[in-house]
C-alpha cells in the first residue's frame, strides 16, 4: 500500500525541523546547566572550576534577584491588567457600528507593529523627557512641575510603554472573538429585557473568556522576557529599580562576564517560564482536539 511509502516520506519531511529544534532546545540549555555549576568568568580564562550550587545560592541570596523577580512580576501583571481591561473596552467599542471603522482599527493596531527599541526611545525622549518631552509641556501648561518619569518612576514608565505596545494585541484578539459572537443571541437577550450591563456579564464575558485566557497566557510568555525597552530607557536603573530577571541575567553575563552566575539566573528564568508554559500548552492542546 501507498501508506507505508507515505509514512516514511512523512518522517523524512518532519525530520529536519525536529532535529533542528531538538538541537536548539537541548545543546544550549545543557550548556547553560553545565555553566551554572562552574565558577567561570570570561575575564579570568582558564580559571574555571566546579562550584556546585554556589552560583544558585549567590543568585538566590542577591537582593538584586528579589528586586528583579518583583519587577518581572510587576511588569507582567501591570501590563496584563492594562491591556486586558483596556483591550476589552476597546474591542467592545470597535465592535459598535461607526463611520470609518477600518481606519480606527488600523490606528489602534499600529503600536504592535513598532519595533521595541523605536517605541521605547520615542516615549523616553519625545514624551517622558522632563525638559523637552510633550508630557513636561502639558504639565507646565497645567501649572504643574514636570515629572521625570524614568528617574522617579522607572518601573511604571516601562510598564506604560510596554502596555502601549501590547494593547493592540489584546484588542485585536478580543475583537476577533467578539465578532464571532452570535448576533441573534444578543438580540434575543435584548428582547428579553437584558440591559447592556447584564448582557456584558452573562453573554459577552463568558464568550470572551477563552480569548482572554489566550491573551493572558501568550502575553505572559513575552512579558517575562521584556528586554529592549529596559535596555534603551533606564538600563535597569536607577540602581536596580527597573531590572527584571532577563535584564539581570544579561547584565551578569555581558556586562560582568560572570558566565556561571548568569547561567544560574538563566536556569531560574527557564523554570519560571515553564510554570507559565504548562498552562498555555494545556489551553492550546485543547484547541487542537476541537
Amino acid at each position, binding site marked *: 500500500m*501507498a501508506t507505508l511509502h507515505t509514512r516514511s516520506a512523512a518522517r523524512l*519531511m*518532519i525530520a*529536519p*525541523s*525536529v532535529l*533542528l*529544534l531538538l538541537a536548539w532546545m537541548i545543546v*544550549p*540549555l545543557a*550548556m*547553560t546547566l553545565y*555553566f551554572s555549576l562552574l565558577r567561570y568568568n570570561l575575564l579570568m580564562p582558564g580559571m574555571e572550576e566546579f562550584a556546585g550550587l554556589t552560583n544558585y545560592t549567590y543568585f538566590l541570596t542577591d537582593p538584586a534577584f528579589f528586586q528583579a523577580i518583583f519587577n518581572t512580576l510587576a511588569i507582567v501583571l501591570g501590563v496584563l491588567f492594562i491591556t486586558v481591561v483596556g483591550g476589552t473596552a476597546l474591542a467592545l*467599542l470597535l465592535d*459598535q*457600528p*461607526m*463611520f*470609518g471603522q477600518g481606519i*480606527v482599527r488600523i*490606528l*489602534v493596531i*499600529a*503600536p*504592535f*507593529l*513598532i*519595533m521595541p*527599541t*523605536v*517605541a521605547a*526611545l*520615542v516615549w523616553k*525622549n519625545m514624551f517622558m523627557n522632563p525638559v523637552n518631552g*510633550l508630557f513636561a509641556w502639558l504639565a507646565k501648561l497645567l501649572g504643574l512641575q514636570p515629572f521625570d518619569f524614568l528617574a522617579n518612576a522607572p518601573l511604571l514608565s516601562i510598564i506604560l510603554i510596554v502596555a502601549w505596545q501590547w494593547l*493592540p*494585541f489584546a484588542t485585536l484578539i478580543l475583537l*476577533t472573538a467578539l465578532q464571532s459572537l452570535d448576533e441573534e443571541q444578543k*438580540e434575543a437577550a435584548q428582547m428579553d429585557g437584558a440591559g447592556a450591563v447584564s448582557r456584558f456579564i452573562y453573554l459577552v464575558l463568558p464568550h470572551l473568556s477563552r*480569548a482572554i485566557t489566550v491573551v493572558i497566557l501568550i502575553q505572559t510568555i513575552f512579558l*517575562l*522576557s521584556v*528586554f*529592549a525597552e529596559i*535596555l534603551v*530607557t533606564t538600563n535597569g536603573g536607577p540602581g536596580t529599580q527597573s531590572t527584571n*530577571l*532577563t535584564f539581570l541575567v*544579561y547584565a551578569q*553575563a555581558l556586562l560582568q562576564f560572570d558566565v556561571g552566575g*548568569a547561567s544560574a539566573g*538563566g536556569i531560574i528564568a*527557564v523554570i519560571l*517560564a515553564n510554570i507559565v*508554559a504548562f498552562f498555555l*500548552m494545556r*489551553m*492550546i*492542546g485543547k*484547541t487542537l482536539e476541537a
Partner: protein
Amino acid sequence: MARNVSTGRKLITTVVAWTIGILIFFPILWTFLTSFKTEAQAIASPPVFLFFDWTTENYAEVQSRSDYLKHFMNSVIVSFGSTLLGLLIAIPSAWAMAFSPTKRTKDVLMWMLSTKMMPPVGVLVPMYLIFRNWGLLDTRTGLVIVLTLINLPIIIWMLYTYFKEIPGEILEAARMDGASLSKEIIYVLTPMAIPGIASTLLLNIILAWNEAFWTLNLSAAKAAPLTAFIASYSSPEGLFYAKLSAASTMAIAPILILGWFSQKQLVRGLTFGAVK
C-alpha cells in the same frame, strides 16, 4: 440582520472611537511629523504641530552620518533570510503532519511549540559563547540562523493550521490518478497552500524585523539591523529628536504597511490558531 442603531448614537461612537484611535496612534504620528522638523523645532516649546518649515534634511543626515542604508539592508536580509529559510524547513514538516498524521503528531506539534516558551535569556550565555568561538558574532549569517530557529515553531504551527483546512479528498483523488508525491505537492497542494504560506511569510517577516533580544545581543556595528541601530540613539549624545524620528520612521514604515495588510493573519498566527 444588521443592528438598527440611530444615527445619533453612531455619530457619538464614531467621535469617541476616532479620538481614542488617534490618541493611541499619536506617538507614531508625532514621530513622523518630528522627522520633518529641524532639531530646534523638534524641541520647541510650545511644540509645533503642523505649521513648521517641512524639511527632509534629517533623512539625508541620518544616511550620511551613519550609513543608514546598510542597517536597513541588514534588517531586510536578516528578516527575509530567516523567514525563507524557515519556510523551506517548515513546509515539508507541516505538510507531512497535516496530511499524514500519526498518533504522535499532536505531541510533536506541542513539543515544537514548547521550545518557543523557553525564555531567550536561558540560553543567552551559551549562544554568545558559541557565536564568539565560531566567529558568528556580529554577522548576518549568525542572526539569520538564530531568528530561523526561534521562529521555526511559529512557522510550522501557522502552516499546519492552514494546511489542515485543505480538504484531504482532493489529495487522495490526485493520488488515485497516479500523481507522484512531488507532482502532488507542485500541482495540487502548492496552489491551495499559497495563501497560507503568504500569510505565514508576512507575519514572520514582521516578527523577525522587530526581534530585539538576539539582534541586540549578538550584533554590533557591522551586522546590526535597525533594532540595534536605533538602540544606539539611547545614549545622551544621541539626543537629536528630529534625526531619531527620521531613523525611526524609516525603520517602522515598511512593517506598518505590511502589518496593516495582514491584520487577520496576525491574530491567527500569534494565537497558534486558538483564535480565528
